[in-house]
């Protein structure tokens, strides 16, 4: 069997096992499902291009690439404020009952997480969605372990404040 074919089989096995968690993480870190899917494709493409290097620890490698891709998009958005993300749009919709149904109410928690500062969001995603340890999270995000702990603590506090308000909005729109 050719080396190229082996590579494709290994990569396919990795994608089948790990792409769902990458997509969920991207969905929280970015603004829309479309953006998250596009980011995951970019992450996997970059991982496949460097498969000889990535296959030693493909999960860690792809998570690092995911962080880089998301940060690239945040930076792009910061440089191009004329192209707002869906959050600004969603915030407006939440107060307008006639459009509120367009918001995906199933993902209340995701919407709240998206409102957190970037570091807190990244840390919560890695610690609670990807089940990474403090050390793994710190290594992937390129921050100190103390930063991970404090960002996690502050992020959880923020969630406890923001969630009730978000839940009220959802109940107002959908009393059932």
């Amino acid at each position, binding site marked *: 069997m050719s080396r190229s074919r082996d590579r494709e089989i290994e990569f396919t096995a990795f994608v089948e096992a790990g792409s769902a968690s990458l*997509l969920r993480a991207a969905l929280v870190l970015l603004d829309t499902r479309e953006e998250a899917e596009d980011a995951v494709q970019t992450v996997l493409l970059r991982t*496949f291009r460097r498969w000889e290097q990535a296959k030693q620890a493909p999960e860690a490698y792809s998570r690092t690439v995911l962080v880089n891709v998301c940060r690239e998009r945040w930076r792009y958005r910061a440089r191009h404020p004329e192209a707002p993300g869906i959050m600004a749009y969603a915030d407006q919709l939440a107060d307008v009952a006639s459009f509120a149904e367009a918001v995906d109410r*199933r993902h*209340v*928690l*995701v919407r709240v997480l998206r409102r957190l500062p970037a570091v807190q969001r990244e840390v919560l995603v890695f610690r*609670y969605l990807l089940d990474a340890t403090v050390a793994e999270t710190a290594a992937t995000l390129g921050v100190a372990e103390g930063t991970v702990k404090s960002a996690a603590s502050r992020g959880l506090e923020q969630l406890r404040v923001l969630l*009730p308000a978000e*839940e009220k909005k959802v109940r107002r729109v959908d009393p059932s």
Partner: protein
Amino acid sequence: MSIHPDDDFNLRAALASELSDVLPDDQLAGAIIARHRAGRRRHRVAGAVGLVIVFAGVAVSLGLRAPGASRPGHVPLRLAPYTLELPGQYHSVPVRSASCGPANGGIHPGLSSTGNPAAMTAAIASGACLVMLLTSPFTPGTRGGPSLPRDARPVALGQYRGWLIPRGWWQPGGATVVVERAEPGGRLQDLIITSAGLSQPAMLSLVSAGLS
């Protein structure tokens, strides 16, 4: 699942529950591999196109062009295998009417008699006249060939080697060069370019830049 803050909040369980329906496409790996292959093909094509563009640019910058073609704004003066590209102010004239031609005493009679009169061409510009003629090789000791003056100075003339003939030897008021032409079967003919109204440096510069 309730996400009320008064509940025993478990973010991990809440996220798992909320995002359980978020699944990637079944064919994601295949799509990525196909995208990777397409990208590599594009890179190869782009590389090939880039090489072609680079080669074309190099060719243009080296002045490669079709045989016989001349640069825009230049006047080609052709004689057998040689082409001397002259600046635009020159224009080709019949040898017999050139002021520096043999008919007007511009070339030493001994020199003009060594070459075939048909193998001559001339061009003039304001204050300058130039004649090209083919002769037997000037290699010292060649039977029947003309001999070079002793103080002829070897010079490089673009892709050719040659000699700069002392002023006044053949051409009373100008500069003259003899051009060697290396050929697989040995040198058959040399080229003489003689001028009136041109200094030796100007003549060397003109021939070095324009002779092919």
